[in-house]
């Protein structure tokens, strides 16, 4: 009898817990909530995955989401207009990845006055001073960039190659960053360099022999004569042609050992600069000894990783960003307290790319 009762009790507890989880996102106001999502650029594959997460969350929570975003991440004025229009429509909440926080200040102020909660997602709304933004669902980019460095330098073959560097012929670890102003990419490179410096200097004989150069922001001479150089390369514009040309410059460097392509566009640039990755073929490619690590996902990058042309890559979780942001938005609209959610990042390579827990994070 006691056994039976305890089983029932357990069952009830599990059900209650499940209900509590489910309730986390439930809309209590009765009518269908209106949530406006505005990304940094509408076309990007990454945001399309986030929109999917948002749509799934919306379906689950019974709210209405509308997605929008400018043509390009640099089209700040277009995004300002879109956010203004969203505020004027008086939705229950706005979910936003700002192209430029300063130019949105007035609009965010208006949202706050109108009592419309704003939730950040992806790169969020960095440096918001209006207080309109209540919480953000995002990858911690410093951690994510660091994640790449740690996994790349942990590779024994990479270590062996980078340790060949001497004071006369230092080995090179290059970083291809799409631009030197975008908050998320800059933080990612920050994280990568910090972890890479630490990991490299911990290797035998490299303490004090690693320098960083290429772009002013990251330049850091080594204490002793350099044996390993970390070089940051930024193309003059974010057009496919310029990124490809910048990749080619990297592959022309002497004693190049590793490359980190810091976002999806940079990865595509590296792939198109290496004859669709065939130059990186481990067996007979002309760059077969160079280790490339990427970031994010996308069709070409996944192929390159599966074929072993890329050592691996770190993916963010755009689906979770969209999903969690809508959850936060609903809670904020219901006047519940909300706080930032780190949506995480994961290293994937040829070995684990097909694992279900990784596959779900990889988007086209």
């Amino acid at each position: 009898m006691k056994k039976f009762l305890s089983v029932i009790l357990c069952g009830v507890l599990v059900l209650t817990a499940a209900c509590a989880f489910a309730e986390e996102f439930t809309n209590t106001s009765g009518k269908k909530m209106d949530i406006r999502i505005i990304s940094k650029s509408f076309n990007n594959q990454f945001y399309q995955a986030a929109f999917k997460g948002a749509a799934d969350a919306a379906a689950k929570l019974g709210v209405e989401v509308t997605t929008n975003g400018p043509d390009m991440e640099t089209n700040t004025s277009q995004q300002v207009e879109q956010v203004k229009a969203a505020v004027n429509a008086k939705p229950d909440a706005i979910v936003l990845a700002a192209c430029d926080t300063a130019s949105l200040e007035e609009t965010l102020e208006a949202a706050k006055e109108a009592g419309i909660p704003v939730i950040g997602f992806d790169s969020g709304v960095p440096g918001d001073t209006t207080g309109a933004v209540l919480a953000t669902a995002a990858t911690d980019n410093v951690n994510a960039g660091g994640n790449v460095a740690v996994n790349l330098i942990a590779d024994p073959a990479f270590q062996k190659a980078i340790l060949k560097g001497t004071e006369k012929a230092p080995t090179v670890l290059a970083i291809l960053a799409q631009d030197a102003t975008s908050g998320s990419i800059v933080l990612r490179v920050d994280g990568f360099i910090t972890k890479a410096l630490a990991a490299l200097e911990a290797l035998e004989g490299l303490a004090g022999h690693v320098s960083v150069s290429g772009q002013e922001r990251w330049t850091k001479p080594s204490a002793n004569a350099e044996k390993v150089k970390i070089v940051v390369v930024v193309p003059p514009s974010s057009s496919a042609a310029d990124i490809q040309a910048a990749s080619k410059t990297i592959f022309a460097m002497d004693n190049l050992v590793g490359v980190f392509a810091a976002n999806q566009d940079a990865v595509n640039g590296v792939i198109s600069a290496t004859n669709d990755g065939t130059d990186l073929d481990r067996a007979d490619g002309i760059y077969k000894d160079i280790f490339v690590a990427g970031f994010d996902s996308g069709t070409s990058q996944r192929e390159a990783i599966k074929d072993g042309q890329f050592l691996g890559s770190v993916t963010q979780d755009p689906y979770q960003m969209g999903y969690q942001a809508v959850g936060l938005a609903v809670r904020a609209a219901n006047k519940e307290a909300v706080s930032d959610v780190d949506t995480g990042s994961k290293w994937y390579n040829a070995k684990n790319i097909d694992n279900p827990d990784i596959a779900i994070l990889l988007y086209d």
Partner: protein
Amino acid sequence: MNDNNGIMAYLKGDGLQKVIAVGCLVVLYIFFGIFGNHFLTQNTFVSILDSSYYIGFLAIGMTFIVITGGIDLSCGTVMVGSALIGGVAYKVWHFPILLCLVVVMLVALLFGWLNGLLVGKLNLPPFIATLGMQFISLGICSVVAKVQTQTYPSLKSADGWFKQVIYKYHNFPVGAIWLIVFFIVGWILLNKTILGRYTYAMGSNEDAVELSGIRTSKWKTLVYVVNGFFVGLAGIIYAATYSTITPQTGNGQEMYAIAACVIGGTSLAGGVGTISGTILGVFVISVLKTGLLSMGLPVQWQQVLIGVVVLLAVLVDVFRAQKAKRT
């Protein structure tokens, strides 16, 4: 003596800018050879070629337009847009790859024809007509693609053969051969056909051409269709070179095409210009872009220098036009 006069006359006329462009190219090459990192290598040379294919095709088409006194601001977005729709044909409609390339061509020709109608028949100023078409192509091609990035088959896949035919066979830059072939096609069109003669004539004095009984509306439309043809070629080679086509990109590329024309001595006032000059202009731009990268200059300085070169080219054009007025 006569020869000497010939050369002097050539230098005083349109030839001067071409000579400057060649000089510029040589100086840039030597400069980057000294200060750049591995600039004088085969890889860098191929890299310069790679980045000049699509700008080359855009610029050949643009030369026709600029000689008529017009401009095409839509070529960059039409190029990417047509490549995007070709990608949709491949990925979504599952067309064979060859047919997809035909789709790219047809889309670009359609936009060229529309531009032609607007400018030729409806007499809209080319700047406005093609600016409108820039937005339309930017939007409509993305709508067709449902704002999804499209990926062309990679070299290794079964359909990757098209890249070997169009872009690169192992490490041999096949694209350069196509650029030469269509450079010759463009040259013949401009120099040896009625279309070419009317192109120059319309740019010099459209009223006179009209008065001599030639239907300029028809010929102008045709010039824009020819431009559409070259934009389509640019779209195909863009797809082969960069594989991943992102919706709503491509604006800004038209400026490189225009800059190439101007550097090569094509006058924005119309009536003057050559295809060979334009190709020189294309290489000045790609050598400059590749060279600045190989020097490891910070981005901002690369942008400044590219801007300076374009301005210098336009200045030469302005001075020449003023001189022509005075004489």
